[in-house]
């Protein structure tokens, strides 16, 4: 029995492998938020007037919300109040990376990404994956840019897009998530410092998986990135996003916004493996992940598909959604959310059916272990004009141990009687029977749990690109270590 306890302790101690800090010189603005900080950020990034205007409007809106104490309180999560004046809103590695050549990057940074398994040198990359790496607040490298440019695909940091393609940014920024959308989206609009930008022109099927890797390094900073993806008529892109952060005792705020726009017959597949630092076993530290992700199927026959594997963060507040505006458009949401130790997740999706014959699918798999609290919150809304709309929702929870919780809040609003809605839900517990069965066949307890969990998540993993699916499975096993005793 004591060997059993020791193994589990050993496993628990190597739980978060991405918790190192890179010692790198950084440049940051003083803590606190006011109009001067916004102007400073905008000036540092040499932004055109329209961006500053937009940021200031967002800031004023956010300030009014903060004054009215309008930070959202409806989610099923508990956390100490966030002091927004105690955060530095801009941090960047000091040596300004040139985007022309990776050789000019700080070698410390390259080593960091190598440790994370993200080699930036192009020759080492998986064939078919172009990477944008965001370190603290700024994008440090984008690979394969020239090759993509040949076919007209723009894949660059948001800052670069603002400089080189201001017309596209101005046309689409805030059209899916306006700066008034919610408290955290307003904050992001005011202070966001970088992120990724993708534009796929008419009729182009992007031949590479585009990938962004986010890394929070500096202490006492927030990370506020913003991603905008536009697929023009008849185009297609698959985009992957991964994230890690060092182990720190204090909580760090991450408030990102992602906007997707699919025009006629266009498709976007967006996959996330979120592995921000989750906090320690007692619930100290960890990332507060308050993220607004939304896609608009603006054109006919367009499709947006979200797949997320959420294993990190102390708190996850996130509802990747689809506005199905174009007739016959399709929205999908596949999610695995795992909460272990004292992690809390309130996540799900909104499917807003506006166009005729619009279809949506939601598959959510929540896993709770330790003292973890996992909430699924979903809305399916069928508007008056959405004749022939269909939704299928499947929402399953798996409990490991007896101190965790699973909660579901499905909302359905139907204003058109031709709609067809299906909702399936289940809650199960990894039983002693199942564990004993697998162990009797020779599998270690930890491996048995991870096998059961992987089986439970299979429907979602199937939607991930191959390399990501493998990474997600491993991540899930690591995140579950120490959950059986």
């Amino acid at each position, binding site marked *: 029995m004591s060997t*059993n306890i020791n193994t589990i302790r050993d496993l628990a101690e190597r739980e978060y492998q991405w918790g190192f800090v890179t010692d790198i010189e950084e440049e940051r603005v003083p803590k606190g938020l006011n109009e001067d900080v916004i102007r400073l950020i905008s000036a540092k990034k040499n932004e055109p007037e329209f961006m500053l205007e937009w940021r200031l409007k967002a800031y004023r809106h956010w300030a009014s919300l903060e004054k009215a104490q309008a930070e959202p309180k409806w989610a099923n999560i508990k956390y100490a109040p966030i002091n927004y004046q105690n955060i530095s809103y801009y941090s960047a590695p000091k040596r300004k990376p040139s985007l022309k050549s990776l050789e000019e990057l700080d070698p410390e940074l390259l080593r960091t990404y190598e440790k994370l398994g993200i080699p930036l040198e192009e020759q080492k990359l998986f064939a078919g994956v172009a990477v944008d790496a965001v370190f603290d607040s700024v994008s440090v490298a984008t690979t394969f840019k020239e090759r993509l440019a040949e076919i007209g695909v723009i894949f660059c940091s948001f800052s670069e897009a603002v400089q080189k393609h201001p017309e596209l940014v101005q046309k689409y920024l805030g059209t899916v998530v306006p700066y008034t959308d919610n408290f955290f989206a307003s904050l992001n609009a005011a202070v966001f410092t970088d992120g990724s930008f993708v534009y796929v022109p008419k009729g182009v099927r992007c031949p590479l998986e585009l990938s962004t890797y986010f890394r929070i390094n500096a202490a006492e900073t927030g990370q506020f990135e913003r991603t905008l993806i536009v697929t023009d008529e008849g185009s297609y892109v698959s985009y992957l996003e991964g994230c890690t952060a060092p182990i720190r005792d204090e909580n760090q705020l991450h408030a990102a916004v992602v906007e997707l726009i699919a025009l006629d017959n266009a498709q976007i597949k967006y996959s996330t493996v979120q592995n921000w630092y989750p906090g320690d076993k007692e619930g100290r530290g960890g990332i507060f992940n308050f993220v607004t992700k939304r896609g608009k199927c603006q054109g006919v026959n367009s499709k947006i598909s979200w797949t997320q594997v959420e294993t990190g963060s102390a708190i996850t507040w996130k509802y990747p959604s689809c506005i199905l505006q174009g007739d016959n458009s399709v929205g999908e949401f596949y999610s695995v959310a795992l909460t272990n130790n004292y992690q809390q997740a309130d996540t799900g999706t909104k499917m807003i059916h506006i166009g005729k014959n619009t279809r949506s699918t939601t598959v959510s798999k929540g896993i709770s272990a330790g003292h973890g609290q996992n909430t699924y919150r979903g809305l399916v809304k069928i508007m008056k004009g959405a004749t022939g709309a269909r939704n299928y929702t499947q929402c399953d929870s798996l409990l490991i141990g007896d101190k965790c919780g699973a909660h579901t809040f499905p909302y359905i609003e139907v204003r058109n009687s031709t709609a067809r809605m299906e909702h399936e839900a289940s809650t199960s517990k990894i*039983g*002693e*029977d*199942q564990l*004993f*069965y*697998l*162990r*009797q*066949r*020779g*599998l*270690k*307890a930890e*491996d048995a749990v991870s*096998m*059961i969990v*992987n*089986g*439970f*998540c*299979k*429907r979602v993993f199937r939607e991930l690109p191959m390399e990501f699916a493998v990474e997600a499975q491993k991540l899930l096993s690591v995140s579950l270590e120490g959950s059986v005793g």
Partner: protein
Amino acid sequence: MSLLEIRNLKVKVDNHEILKGIDMEINPGEVHSIMGPNGSGKSTLAQVLARRESYDVTDGEILYTGKDLLAMKPEDAACEGIFMAFQYPVEIPGISNAYFLRSALNAIRKYRGEDELDAMDFLPMFREKLKLLDMDEKLMNRSVNEGFSGGEKKRNEILQMAVLEPKLAILDETDSGLDIDALRIVANGVNAMRSPDRAIIVVTHYQRLLNYIVPDFVHVLVNGRIVRSGGPELALELEEKGYVEIDSETRQVTPA
């Protein structure tokens, strides 16, 4: 050295004594049948041998290949060659039969310091074993036991046994819920596994299965005690007289 030696084993469940002092010795190559009415403690004995942790062993010891079995975790016992065919096999949604079995086999091989098998090495062997149990290849890609009929589940247990090639196989009421054809297939599978270096324990409360798997020894378990042991003829005698009579006869000979 015997393969398994059980000495004065006493086991409690929820503070209720189920096994009241079991002694038994099993050698490689032997097939032992443990028979007894419902609630006699047969399944408890099987599960304790497979190291299920929810049983409270209050006295006695079990030596398996000379090692202290009661100190082993279930996975260690499995890797040391103990296999139990479950009375109620468990479903594992989303995990294919082939993947599950290969993972189990590789866990055992790794424990023994042998190379793990990749899918290419595994498949031909797996196909061979499927044939032995007259099972459809489609079953390879179905989730473990999910949507299987009662008979398919039991056959799947014997399939696993055939792949994992244990030193000591325990069949816990493998005959329950089987029709006569399935019973014959399962028995053929088990008989094909009989070998001089493998022992098999067949737990059952009907004599029927023993027409197909003929044991070397029969033990009658009543109320937590082995009341009689003998050869295969004891099973027939039981079938004729019933457990009550055998038990009372025994009591007259050796009053407790």
